[in-house]
């Protein structure tokens, strides 16, 4: 794919002048117009484009919000309320941003599970996958710091709980955890100083994220897209040019996604948030039940499933870190896609169910039967990646994929009767 020859032919003197100096138009033409995309992609492959939209939307709304927001402990809560009440369309911009964060995660989780189902991480797409995991991490850090900014009760206590986790590092190197926590806090407690540095990082990280996304897209355009069969593009018949085929499909999918997005923004703007965040932060009043945003709940459940603090923290970060090794943990080399892995398919759905269950348990108090189930599902989460992927890959009898992408769409071209293969 990377060796796909450019057929860009600049028209007129101006275009030629540019093409000899900075061939941006040629690059765009090669990578986003002529770029060959597998012709058998389903709608799960539209989430890359949707995610790009989410990132741009968050940047655009975020920059406007930053013009009105006051990142100080005394003013933050009031300034967010003022944005909603007195800034022109502030209620809309702030909700686009808050709901947008949730939609970003909806899309990224679908994107991630699509990769796991179709084996999109397998050679030669390891770097592409690993960049994706780093994007997820950067998103999580950005979202967490962003959630702190309204400086409501849940903001304050989420920051308190999560930053405190680092103190568990004291049990490895005495003093290390405490130092990190004090450095994060900018003092000896969560204060407005913490808020201000979170704000600074919340503005910085999206640019890191953007950089990672550029690398992710670059890596994608070097190795080409995976597809439901997991086969590579071999002939022209396997692919269609990105424009207008993939573009028209992505545009439709994006608008369908926007229907959901805007439903929340206009009709259920507070559904994905927490009522406690409409109370100003108060260091003296602990909410009865501290929970993170929904997209962190599975990880929060893993954290609390483990009775020892440091191990809990390691498991929580480990649950994301393990994704980095998926390309090598999965020992199945004969096929990529779960379509041809009758047993893996079941384990995949078990993992999906596990993540949903962990999400549910993360919203529950850490007591009694909830902890029991959180432990069961946490165990399976790691078993899936550390045992099922390697072992199953070696012993599973895979099905035979079609000979080519074209065949998977059009049927057996070579042996079909001529009337069908017109």
């Amino acid at each position, binding site marked *: 794919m990377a060796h796909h020859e450019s057929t860009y032919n600049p028209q007129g003197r101006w275009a030629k002048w540019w093409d000899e100096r900075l061939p941006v138009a040629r690059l765009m033409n090669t990578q986003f117009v002529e770029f060959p995309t597998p012709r058998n992609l*389903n709608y*799960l492959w539209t989430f890359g484009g949707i995610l790009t939209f989410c990132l741009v939307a968050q940047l655009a709304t975020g920059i406007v919000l930053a013009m009105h927001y006051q990142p100080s402990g005394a003013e933050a809560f009031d300034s967010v309320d003022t944005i909603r009440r007195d800034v022109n369309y502030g209620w809309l911009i702030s909700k686009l941003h808050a709901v947008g964060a949730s939609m970003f995660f909806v899309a990224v989780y679908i994107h991630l599970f699509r990769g796991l189902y179709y084996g999109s991480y397998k050679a030669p797409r390891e770097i592409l996958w690993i960049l994706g995991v780093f994007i997820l991490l950067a998103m999580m850090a950005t979202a967490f710091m962003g959630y702190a900014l309204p400086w409501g009760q849940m903001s304050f206590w989420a920051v308190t709980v999560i930053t405190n986790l680092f103190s568990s590092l004291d049990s490895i190197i005495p003093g290390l955890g405490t130092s990190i926590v004090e450095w994060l806090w900018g003092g000896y407690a969560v204060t407005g100083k913490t808020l201000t540095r979170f704000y600074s990082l919340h503005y910085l990280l999206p640019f890191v994220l953007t950089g990672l996304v550029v690398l992710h897209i670059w890596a994608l355009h070097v190795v080409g897209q995976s597809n*439901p069969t997991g086969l590579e593009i071999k002939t022209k018949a396997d692919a269609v040019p990105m424009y207008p085929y993939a573009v028209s499909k992505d545009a439709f999918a994006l608008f369908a996604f926007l229907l959901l997005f805007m439903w929340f923004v206009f009709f259920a703007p507070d559904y994905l948030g927490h009522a406690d965040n409409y109370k100003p932060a108060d260091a003296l009043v602990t909410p009865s039940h501290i929970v993170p945003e929904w997209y962190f709940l599975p990880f929060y459940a893993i954290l609390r499933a483990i009775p020892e603090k440091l191990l809990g923290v390691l498991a929580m970060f480990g649950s994301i870190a393990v994704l980095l090794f998926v390309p090598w943990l999965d020992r199945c080399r004969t096929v990529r896609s779960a379509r041809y892995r009758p047993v893996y398919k079941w384990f995949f759905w078990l993992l999906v169910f596990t993540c949903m269950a962990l999400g549910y348990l993360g*919203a529950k108090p850490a007591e009694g039967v909830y902890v029991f189930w959180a432990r069961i599902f946490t165990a399976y989460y790691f078993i899936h990646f550390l045992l099922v992927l390697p072992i199953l890959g070696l012993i599973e009898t895979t099905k035979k994929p079609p000979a080519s992408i074209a065949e998977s769409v059009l049927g057996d071209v070579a042996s079909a009767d001529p009337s069908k293969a017109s």
Partner: protein
Amino acid sequence: MKHHFKMPAFASAIVLATALASAPVHAAGGGIEIERQDWSFSGPLGLFDRAQLQRGFQVYKEVCSGCHSINRVRFRNLVEKGGPEFPEEAVKELAAGWDYQIDAGPNDDGELVDDDGEFFTRSPLLSDAIPGPYKNDKQAQAAQNGALPPDLSLITKARNTDYTGPVWFHPIHMLKDIVTAYQEGGADYLYALLTGYSSQAPAYKRDNKGKLLPVKEDDVGSDTVERCATVTHEHDEGKKDVCTPMQEGMNYNAAFAGHQIAMAGPLSDEGVDYKEDASGKPVAPLTTDQYSRDVTAFLAWAADPSHDQRKRMGWLVMLYLLITTVLLYYAKKSIWKRLKKH
């Protein structure tokens, strides 16, 4: 090939459903079931009822404002579209005659205090925030036996209800709330709180194993009963249930977490005189129930003044997106038709 992408489509639906279903829907309720009310502003089509907002403001002014501020709302908001929409002149008068003054800052001579050592104050203007009865939290607590009456500007957003049904139904319940755009948890809670007062805590009687069993008020008679704000059931054999009695000065409330609330029941029948219509009857019933509904609607607006504008714009946005999505679908279809079947 159709069956091949049913699985991922199903997968995405599931992932999405989980994502949405695991969103927290709890908060202040403390596990107490709160009945949902039918509000004019419920659901994607609901809008505020002007007359109700006006009545609700009257209840706030005559009852709540004695202790609670709504200092994120400005007098001008009462005039603006989407709110109670009082006439501007009436609100100017209202502000000028408001019970509470605001700090005026130094006078023209640069003096900070008057001859008695008090800060200069003035009546609020249209552009001012509606001042509450207390200058600060300390003053409020001093006047209220240590309890702090919260500012009510965001109260309906800062409260919510708990899901109390069976676990297996929870995801379905959440999806239903998303589809019906349920956003009135705070209002439902507030209404339940305002109408949830009883003169005393419920009665219980102990059986011979030490379990506390509820007794209906009508059946109490001359029996000795225990009055418990909350009851903690002990699952271990041989242990007695624990009865938490009401504390001195607290009031029993069915909706409040722990059921003991410092605020006494603020509303009573005929406590607020609504204006009369042409036939000489009040525009709405003079009942605690009606007052509670009206003031809750008013406070729901106070917390979300752009509510009506938001939903109206939402309809246009959804309509635009629907049409465009359909057009894009057919555009995509016709483009993909160009592909030769080889």
